């Protein structure tokens, strides 16, 4: 077998409390395009950061052209021929386009930077990308898509052997994506090895030769693109073997008697998502399913007023309501546990008690202070009910485990006595026991008449908890499943878009 351009073996990497990569392998051949796939938290980004020297790996070996290498910094990676274009454009907006392409390797004349050469060479270079613009203008003056192309131009021009594209297409239009693909194919012909990270599966099938799937920091496998069917690929990403799925029998609970409608969303939209229509009954657990980037979180943020609603209506109990911001939503008895526990959820330096009562306090307004005594009662009640493991309610929340933090956040919202509870990935990154507990809590809450909107990447738990399920693809609700129809096979078919075309 020919020597691989790049080989990574037994790569391990841990962050405090999380194993990000566990014995992962990856290999890349020259003149090929290799997709690196996985859901959020699968370890794609970490693997790339390890390869490009942004993070140091805890263990493992990396071979370039058969020789072991130790990448110490992004600059070192560049010198070794590994060039990366990151998801967010990583260039300097205040410098000119030309300078962004050449910084770090400026041509010199008589001991000073040769601006004329920089400007002329950049102009030549970006012509290859069908860009015709004033390279002396500041980069920040151009749209993100153009900036992205310039980042790629820079990466390619650094005489790279390996080009890593980390979700480069998320800000590009269809035509721009096509252009990028042409360039990728051209580079492939020149013998580059390209690593392509994306969550658009159609693009994977359009342009790549090989696929490597990661899940939960572990290596799932490497496959030839044309030998792996899309549903099977989705199965691997989500952790289910597609063939065996059809046989799993489902225990489905009946929705409550005489369902009473709680919320009705008609053609609502924000800047990020359009045409959202669905309804939820009291006591119903409804799931939002779809791949990363399909619009699940955007839908939740729309309901909660976190993104400004620009069109459509929301009706609660058949009355039109206007939800302009999260406080409006809280006062309409809507609660939202966001997916980013650390940045949008917990307030690390505050105690468990303070974290629990904060939403209730907001709902009541600042003139109606939740008394110390009441706060303590509420905190103790939920610590007991939700089985939060902590020595006392005065413990700082940052000292709890992820699962217990999640329960505190759940308590925060239950304390506001909501009629609709939205949970975005409530079980991500917490251990199995806590997961099961949270699933049980959701089902119990629904029995008391609360409506729940449940978002999760794990189909199994969705299947176990939900009465109905909306499937999203490309920022659209494409399917509604209910009762016995909620099977992983059906969900995956909808995600893959089969039976439509």
């Amino acid at each position, binding site marked *: 077998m020919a020597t691989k351009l790049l080989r990574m073996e037994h790569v391990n990497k841990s962050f405090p409390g999380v194993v990000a990569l566990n014995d992962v392998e990856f290999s890349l051949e020259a003149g090929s395009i290799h997709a690196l796939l996985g859901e959020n938290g699968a370890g794609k980004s970490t693997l790339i950061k390890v390869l490009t020297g942004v993070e140091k790996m805890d263990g493992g070996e990396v071979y370039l052209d058969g020789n072991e290498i130790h990448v110490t910094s992004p*600059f070192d990676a560049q010198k070794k021929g590994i060039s990366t274009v990151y998801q967010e454009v990583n260039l300097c907006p205040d410098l000119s386009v030309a300078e962004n392409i050449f910084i770090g390797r400026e041509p010199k004349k008589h001991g000073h930077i040769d601006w004329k050469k920089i400007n002329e060479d950049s102009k030549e270079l970006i012509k290859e990308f069908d860009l015709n613009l004033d390279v002396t203008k500041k980069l*920040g003056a151009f749209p993100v898509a153009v900036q992205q192309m310039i980042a790629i131009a820079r990466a390619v021009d650094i005489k790279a052997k390996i080009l890593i594209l980390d979700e480069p297409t998320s800000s590009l239009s269809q035509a721009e994506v096509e252009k990028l693909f042409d360039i990728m194919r051209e580079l492939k012909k020149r013998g580059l090895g390209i690593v392509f990270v994306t969550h658009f599966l159609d693009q994977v099938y359009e342009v790549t030769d090989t696929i490597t799937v990661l899940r939960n920091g572990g290596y799932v496998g490497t496959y030839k693109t044309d030998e792996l069917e899309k549903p099977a690929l989705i199965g691997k990403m989500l952790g289910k073997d597609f063939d065996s799925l059809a046989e799993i029998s489902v225990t489905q609970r009946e929705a409550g008697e005489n369902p009473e409608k709680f919320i009705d969303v008609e053609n609502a939209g924000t800047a990020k998502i359009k045409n959202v229509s669905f309804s939820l009954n009291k006591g119903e657990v409804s799931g939002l399913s779809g791949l990363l980037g399909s619009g699940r979180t955007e839908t939740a943020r729309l309901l909660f007023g976190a993104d400004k609603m620009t069109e459509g209506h929301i009706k609660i109990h058949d009355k039109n309501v206007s939800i302009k911001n999260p406080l409006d939503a809280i006062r309409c008895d809507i609660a939202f546990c966001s997916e980013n526990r650390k940045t949008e959820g917990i307030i690390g330096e505050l105690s468990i008690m303070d974290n629990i009562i904060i939403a209730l306090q907001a709902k009541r307004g600042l003139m109606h202070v939740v008394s110390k005594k009441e706060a303590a009662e509420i905190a103790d009640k939920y610590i007991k009910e939700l089985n939060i493991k902590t020595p006392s309610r005065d413990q700082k929340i940052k000292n709890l485990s992820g699962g217990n933090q999640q329960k505190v956040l759940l308590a925060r919202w239950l304390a506001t006595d909501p009629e609709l509870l939205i949970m975005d990935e409530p079980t991500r990154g917490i251990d199995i026991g806590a997961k099961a507990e949270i699933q049980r809590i959701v089902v119990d809450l629904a029995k008391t008449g609360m409506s729940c909107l449940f978002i999760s990447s794990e189909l199994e738990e969705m299947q176990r908890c939900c009465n109905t399920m909306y499937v999203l693809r490309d920022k659209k609700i494409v399917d509604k499943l209910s009762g016995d129809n909620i099977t992983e096979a059906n969900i995956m078919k909808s995600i893959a878009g089969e039976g439509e075309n």
Partner: protein
Amino acid sequence: MMKKLTIGNVSLLIAICLFIAMFVGGSIKYDRFGSVSTIFNLFNDNAYLIIVATGMTFVLLTGGIDISVASNLAFTCVLSAFLLDKRWSALVVIPLVLFIGTFAGFLMGYCIQVFKIQPFIITLAGLFFLRGMCAVVSTVSIPINNAFYKSLALSKISFQIGGSRAKLYYYVFIALAVVLIAWFVLKYTKFGRYVYAVGSNEVSAELMGIDVKKVKIAVYAISGFSASLGGFVFSLYTLAGYSLQNMGLELDAISSAVIGGTLLTGGVGTVIGSMFGVLIQGIIQTIVTYQNLNTWWTKVTIAALLCFFIVIQRIIAIRAEKKKA
């Protein structure tokens, strides 16, 4: 091709226009204002501030701040006066004080970078320490009688223009040389461009293979160097060293840079702009003197100007954002 207009040079343009407008306005209103002599005196009186503001611009361009420069300058003056008084040779004293100033800057930069401490806090510590050290050296004003200093301080070029005599002291050329060299460094050397890159987006700069650490330490060393060089020029200007000299000068340097179009968030600005910032403050001072007003009116006017410039910069930035979207 249309001339490009960006945040930096619109502010610079406004600053230059404002300077000219004030000069013309002053010339119409007051006798003997509109002369070469007035311009020369602006340089004579502000040479040290131009030097300090130039060094400060490097730090601001990376998105940092250095509030220790006034103390650094004062310490340089006091120590030079003290050592010269002890009959040390000027040729030993000058390199020594410049080295100490630069080293102080380097040390602060090192702490900021290696221990990840906010520049404000570290340079605040530097401010207190150096100002305190001034008093340790001497609490009374020490006159400088060194022959070399005296001859350098008093040598000047003078011209006979019209009816008046215009004088330009030699030390002004130090300031002009500093501005010129800094301009060249920022525009035509790798280091200079890295300063802009780091201020524009530090993470990107690092990912593009720039040694951010070195750049950030270096700008504080440069700021320290120019503060002590400014101190040297200031000791020529006053021929004395006093521990309470130039309190608050760091803020004059920062406001000069901002008026000249430097963004405190980093990435945008020029040393030419900072020089005009200093000159604008100087000319306001001159007008205030001609008008026989309390000198604090200078500060009031500069406050108004600062607000004006910052609002203008924001408006331009917001418009650029909208255009892009």
